[in-house]
């Protein structure tokens, strides 16, 4: 495998990883606050649709993004009401949200656009185009660094940079701010937060809504940056992979980055059977190639990642009075 191929592979890795990363960080906020979120998939899907729909109607990707985030927030709020206010089962709520998004997006799309559950194609400002970073063209011909900068680092959509910046930002918020301290505490021992005079409910809603915003970005990236419009079910299980990455990352922001990049790399490798063949010297039959990333994940989990301990109060509603 030559250098250029490597760069291309990594470039593809970044694109695959971006929605996973955003969703993974969304899950991180929610679960660090003690609310399990298997509804990442649904929120992402809803955001993908509404971003594309609003972007089409207004002609602006940014306005679309707001629409997508709003849609994701509505689902997040439902999850909050069910699992925080009414202390419902967080897993059921997540399952319901995934189904709701899968059905609603197509239903609304059909009602609005009559194109069989998709949005019309987006062009121009209704899409997030790649950004060429300053100097990319100038250094492109410099050996080694040039392609790295011009091909791999430059040229992605703004949402990619937001996603990657969200990692240190998440770390900073969680570990360097008052809000982060309280948020982590509420996922470990809500009673400690409550008796310290801080609202458990308020914190958990905040976390769930932040998750909504991040899923909104993830969905928007799918339909307006990677694609030029919404297609039904286009989240294609990425929410679940993000969840796996979250556990893999042991609920930590930097690990989340590496975990999603790893899954992204698996995705990228799957599109390059030639590279796999060159590296392992064996042709893998197509269908099995599709299963390879998952097998690798299991092997890594079994071999290298120890027990992942979730936030202690995770999944359980905070009940003071039995």
């Amino acid at each position: 495998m030559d250098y250029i191929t490597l760069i291309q592979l990594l470039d593809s890795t970044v694109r695959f990883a971006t929605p996973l990363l955003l969703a993974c960080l969304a899950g991180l906020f929610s679960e660090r606050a003690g609310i399990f979120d298997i509804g990442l998939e649904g929120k992402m899907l809803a955001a993908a649709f509404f971003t594309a729909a609003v972007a089409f109607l207004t002609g602006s990707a940014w306005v679309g993004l707001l629409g997508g985030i709003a849609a994701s927030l509505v689902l997040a709020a439902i999850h909050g009401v069910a699992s925080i206010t009414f202390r419902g089962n967080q897993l059921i709520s997540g399952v319901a949200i995934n189904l709701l998004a899968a059905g609603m997006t197509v239903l609304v799309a059909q009602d609005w656009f009559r194109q069989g559950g998709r949005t019309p194609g987006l062009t121009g400002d209704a899409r997030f185009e790649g950004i060429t970073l300053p100097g990319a063209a100038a250094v492109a011909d410099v050996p080694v660094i040039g392609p790295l900068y011009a091909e791999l680092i430059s040229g992605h959509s703004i949402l990619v940079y937001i996603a990657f910046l969200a990692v240190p930002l998440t770390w900073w918020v969680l570990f360097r701010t008052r809000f982060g301290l309280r948020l982590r505490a509420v996922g470990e021992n809500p009673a400690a937060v409550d008796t310290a005079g801080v609202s458990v409910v308020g914190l958990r809603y905040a976390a769930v809504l932040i998750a909504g915003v991040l899923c909104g970005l993830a969905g928007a990236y799918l339909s307006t940056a990677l694609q030029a419009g919404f297609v039904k079910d286009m989240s294609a299980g990425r929410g679940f992979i993000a969840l796996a990455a979250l556990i893999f990352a042991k609920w930590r922001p930097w690990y989340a980055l590496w975990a999603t990049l790893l899954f992204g790399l698996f995705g990228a490798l799957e599109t390059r059977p030639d590279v796999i063949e060159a590296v392992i010297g064996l042709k893998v039959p197509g269908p099995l190639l599709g299963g390879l990333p998952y097998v690798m994940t299991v092997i890594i989990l079994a071999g290298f990642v120890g027990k992942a301990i979730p936030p202690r109060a995770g999944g359980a509603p905070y009940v003071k009075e039995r």
Partner: protein
Amino acid sequence: MNADATTGQPETAAPAIELKGISKSFGPVQANKDISIRVMPGTIHGIIGENGAGKSTLMSILYGFYKADRGEIFVSGRKANITDSQAAIASGIGMVFQHFKLVENFTVLENIILGAEDGRMLTPSLAKARRTLVDLAADYGLNVDPDAKIEDIGVGMQQRVEILKALYRQADILILDEPTGVLTPAEADQLFRILARLREEGKTIILITHKLREIMEITDTVSVMRRGEMTATVRTADTSPAELAELMVGRKVLLRVDKTPAQPGEVVLDVQGLRVIDSSGVERLRGIDLKVRAGEIVGIAGVAGNGQSELLEVLGGMKAGQGTALLNGQPLDVTGKKSDGKTRRKSGVAHVPEDRQREGLIMDFQAWENTAFGYHDDPAYNTGFLMNNAAIREDTARKMERFDVRPPNPRLAAKNFSGGNQQKVVLAREIERNPDLLLIGQPTRGVDIGAIEFIHEQIVALRDQGKAILLVSVELEEILALSDRIAVMFDGRIMGERLPADTNEKELGLLMAGITDTAHEHSVEEIEANLAHVHATDKGA
């Protein structure tokens, strides 16, 4: 000793706390009924009552954790609208809960500032808290390592963190809910010194405890609760332990264990060179040699976390260790390879674990299911492939009757029994098996006086039937009252054995701190330094 402190206070001063007509129900359970109480500033006010009497509930209401259904709260004469803990804190109230409210994987410092940070950024808040902590520690003798994680420090230390949390929030009124339940005598004494110091500073303290000795020792006034009601409030100086016990339980209570001298027989348990290394590589037991004979109670004293738990767990088949052990002359596997809790029980070892809620019981199971717990293979409980639930229920009803479990309903879930009655369910299960050897850890932790009396009687009765009993307790009083022989553990070793008649709390206390040279006087600092070493490796009780 400070009973006359109240006399210094003019009765006309506004009470620090006044509760009027507080009532609270949890669904169908009425935990507090029309409770009124006054606590004068600068005093220590004790509250006693049986398990489930409603003490914690009342204090949680005062702290804004629960909302009362009815009633009013006055702080320093002014009506306070305490809707949540934030409001309570603002009114100068601090509370140390019976079950600590700490974030286990946070540091001490983080726990202290949680909810009381200065500004949005953590770093300046932490820096400020660190400075304040140094001052507080110096003022009250509350030394803690601000950077230790809660899960890595002992319960005594955790409690200090809770107190510091309240002081950091500038509480004038401090509520402590059963603070000594988890402490050694030395630690408890130290706590009381701190409380006395706080009182001198003019702070008001409300202390919930089951221990009459503590009430007599430190409080100025005391209130007694029974079944959700406040039955009496008296000045400590005007009452006696016996009177308080009677007020609490509603009948006369024997405050000492009545027992005849032991008649030790054959050696039942013979342990040689027992070692345990935990998962993080720390040696928890460093070669224990111990014999327990038929018809004797051997008490293991020690500060929590010095290997007593591990000793019980290895002998009970829950943990793997190295070394040899003989039960009635037959080898007992301690390596965990060939045996577990089940095989232990079959060979005649019964085990009342230290933590009944996490180990001894399944809280969501009904009483009868818990009676079968560990013995579910018993042929009497099974008919062929299926479990004979009716038989188990009958057996449970019998046992509940014998052990006076209240209410005697085999179909009630374990979580719906009070602590004392939960313990009786476990005891009934283990004792009624007629074991050769009974391992029993913290038999009366958090249990009220009435139940303690009963439990102690049962343990002695078992001994008198010629059974061997290995008792682990952090209550020195209990060890002294029950044991026929006392071994003191420190840092995974047995520091010495004593006969109860030949020793006293002071000598045992020194042994518990690892000081074998008990003839000399030792300073508090020396003892603390020794204990600190243990706490550093103790992962909590």
